[in-house]
């Protein structure tokens, strides 16, 4: 039988990850990293949001960008799925629509790295959704 990964293996790798993390944390604080939320309701999932989420997790790591990728619900832009919301440290969130891996790569290179805006931004009413939630 082949050896499969277990909790023991996780324990073994934990310390290596931890020391790497400690080194980084001296420079950065958690709120200073880019935050990406992938819209993952029925509409997003059916349009391939999972692949986009995986892509961001892997590419941020490859391109040595510190970021947190999480899931969120439907933002109401079902026609433009997959959609993502990118929040650069200290900036307002920006929502991008029709994100495929090519667009995702462009967003990382131009918007996340340099702060340049790229095509595909969904303007407008994002704040009103938040307001509705708090009603």
């Amino acid at each position, binding site marked *: 039988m082949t050896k499969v990964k277990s909790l023991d293996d996780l324990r073994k790798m934990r310390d290596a990850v*931890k020391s790497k993390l400690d080194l980084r944390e001296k420079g950065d604080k958690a709120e200073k990293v880019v935050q990406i939320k992938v819209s993952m309701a029925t509409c997003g999932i059916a349009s391939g949001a999972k692949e986009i989420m995986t892509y961001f997790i892997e590419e941020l790591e490859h391109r040595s960008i510190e970021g947190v990728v999480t899931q969120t619900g439907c933002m109401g832009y079902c026609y433009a799925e997959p959609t993502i919301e990118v929040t650069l440290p200290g900036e307002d969130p920006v929502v991008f629509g029709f994100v495929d891996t090519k667009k995702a790569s462009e967003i990382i290179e131009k918007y996340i790295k340099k702060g340049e805006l790229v095509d595909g931004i969904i303007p407008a009413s994002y704040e009103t959704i938040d307001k509705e939630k708090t009603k």
Partner: protein
Amino acid sequence: MKDLSMHIMDIVQNSTRANATLIKIIVNENPGLNMLQIKIIDNGDGMDPEITKQVSNPFFTSRTTRKVGLGIPLLIQNAEQTGGNVSIESDKGKGTIITASFQHRHIDRVPWGDIPGTITLLFSGNPSIDFVYSHHFNNEVFEIDSRIIKKELDGIPINQPAIIKFIKEMIDENLKNIGVDINN
């Protein structure tokens, strides 16, 4: 939905929106008995009987961002086309249990899809929620509990890339080990 893992991702999203803090995904697979069952149990807000009746209606949704809710209707469609069904039990204030049953070998049963990737994304994409994923295949079982993982991690965030990769490989290897064929 093209595969079962997409349905899992989708139904779990309902639980996260209902403020669940613990979501259990229990799979029972037995090709010999032609049985495949997915059960999703959450401790979220739950629904009263009126609402529970309505969720299989595609034109019902609790959200305000759009007017249709297709998650459960699509799951029902995929279950029923194999001769299976979906049942929903909900208790206001306690949580919801959704059970989808399929005929395992039915030609219209959609495949698993990327189960390891899906479960891993649930863990990493919702770091503040806990998940138990338990996959029974014939008489074998593989279970992964994010509470145990987080305890082992001892403060390292579960969405660290190295950890995400590890969890994905761990699920993949263990499912293969108990005989699950995720391409089917």
